[in-house]
């Protein structure tokens, strides 16, 4: 593989030096653990208990047990976690963060001023605050008896909602929308800002309506960004662990997503062989989704 530099600024050797540190870190702290995980997913390794001393090679039985269809959907098993995760990703990422981020970016497109700064900062702060702090704030926010949300509902004359007991999955969906919208918002805002002003001038001249502008100018130019946002946000949402701090995956596993399920298997009971299998399955699902997005994007005529 001839790495011929296409730049006169950066010679091949300097370029490789630039790459070296990143490659070193990735080799040590990414590839090595990854290979390990792949290998132990084929065993019944645990950290405590008899299997820790004499783990045995079990082939793909860890994987098979995950997909044991007769018990799959039972609350507390993998099928349940997977279904919850799918709903979670659909609700909070695909139909949550990304559209909302786009809407906010559109709303402030070509506008500056204090309001824009306030909105963008609020959303970004929600994104960057540490998970622990945010978890406490949300436990307080959606509490049935004392939470602000229900206080607001009461003010408007609506009955209280017991989020964490009746609708835990919806609770974490709303939480995750709140948490991650900023990324899509910033992404689309930048993309919109890159649209050459000449397009807008033309649109003004021909008297295009807002909807026409969206359909014919914005959407085509922003579509690539849409896919990237979807891929990254889907990946992140699939793997996010913060909801554990709010609902603990409960009650009765109704808000248990795959990362929480992995944690329970691998850390509560130290069953790392099984935990590794789950991680590999997750990665495969993410891979399939990402490929799907990429294919969809390439197939449409540009």
């Amino acid at each position, binding site marked *: 593989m001839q790495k011929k530099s296409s730049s006169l600024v950066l010679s091949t050797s300097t370029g490789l030096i630039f790459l070296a540190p990143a490659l070193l*870190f990735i080799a040590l702290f990414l590839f090595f653990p990854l290979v*390990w995980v792949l290998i132990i997913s084929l065993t019944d390794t645990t950290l405590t208990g008899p299997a820790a001393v004499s783990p045995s090679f079990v082939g793909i039985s860890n994987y098979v047990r995950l997909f044991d269809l007769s018990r799959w959907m039972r609350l507390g098993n993998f099928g349940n976690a997977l279904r919850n995760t799918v709903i979670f990703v659909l609700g909070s990422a695909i139909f949550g963060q990304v559209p909302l981020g786009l809407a906010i970016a559109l709303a402030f497109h070509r506008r500056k001023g204090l309001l824009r700064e306030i909105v963008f900062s609020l959303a970004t*702060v929600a994104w960057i605050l540490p998970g622990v702090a945010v978890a406490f704030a949300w436990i307080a926010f959606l509490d049935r008896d004392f939470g602000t949300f229900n206080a607001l509902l009461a003010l408007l004359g609506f009955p209280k909602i017991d989020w964490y007991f009746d609708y835990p999955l919806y609770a974490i969906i709303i939480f995750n929308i709140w948490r991650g919208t900023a990324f899509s918002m910033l992404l689309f805002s*930048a993309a919109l800002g890159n649209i050459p002003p000449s397009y807008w001038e033309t649109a003004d001249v021909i008297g295009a309506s807002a909807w026409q502008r969206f359909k014919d100018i914005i959407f085509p130019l922003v579509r690539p960004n849409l896919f990237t946002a979807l891929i990254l946000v889907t990946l992140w949402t699939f793997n996010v662990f913060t909801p554990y701090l709010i609902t603990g995956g409960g009650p009765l596993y109704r808000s248990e997503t795959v990362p929480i399920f992995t944690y329970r298997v691998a850390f509560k009971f130290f069953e790392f062989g099984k935990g590794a299998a789950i991680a590999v399955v997750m990665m495969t699902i993410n891979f399939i989704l990402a490929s799907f997005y990429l294919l969809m994007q390439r197939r449409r005529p540009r």
Partner: protein
Amino acid sequence: MRGLKKCAFKLCWGIFILLVVTFFLLPLLWLITAPFDAKATLRVAIPSKFTLANFQAIFRNTFAVRALFLNSIVIAGGTMLGVTLFATLAAYAIARLNIPGRDILAYLLVLFSSVVQGTAAMVPIFILLFHLKLIDTYPGVIFVLIGGLLPTGIFLMRDFVAGVPKSYEESALVSGARPWQVLRDVVLPVLRPGMMVLAVWSFVQAWGDFLISLIVMRSPAKMPAPIAIYSFYTEGGTPVLTLVSAYSLIYALPVVFLYLFVNWRYGFRFFGGIKGGGR
């Protein structure tokens, strides 16, 4: 008629913005009111017994204070420097060296990093660090965090690198500048806003890390804030709301300040070139 339509449109816009602001603001209110309440509950209310005693209690817990003001900063700062530097170098090199398959590679790396940041990889990471004699050290935590964040960091940085026109570089060279001068005077200024975003993002990720610090650190003197916050729990494992809210607030402030600073100085935004597929 047109005027009415415009009015309705403006009204909708206004309502939308109001809803958005409310949505993002409301959950944060508790973090601002509870720490100042001597009898903090889960309620958001103007503190009936306004007090700073919660903060006093926090500062008496030297373990937790040290965790926040020293350890978290060292860990997050180190990670920030590492990720920003190495990801920028790598992203630039990847773009200029024309490595084949680099787009697929970038996606694959991001995928792999998700496995490694989960709980399943904790054992190999621990054993690796043990053999490198990095258990209970700052570099141990920092290196693992850097390794986990680099793929996404490189991915994000490629967006900004796309904004450095090769033509600028080449014309600078032609006018007699040395390569390192070109890097410093042409490339770096364009990349700087991107590096700032990356710095904030990686700082934030490391600031919130719990799992890796738990695996690697042992001395209480080196534990960062997300672990130290549990010292404000009772023996039975329930949080003491007055203390936990106060600590959360202090814990949240540094990242907010970092964001505000970067936003004011450089503007916190992406480049807009992140597109999926080939380039």
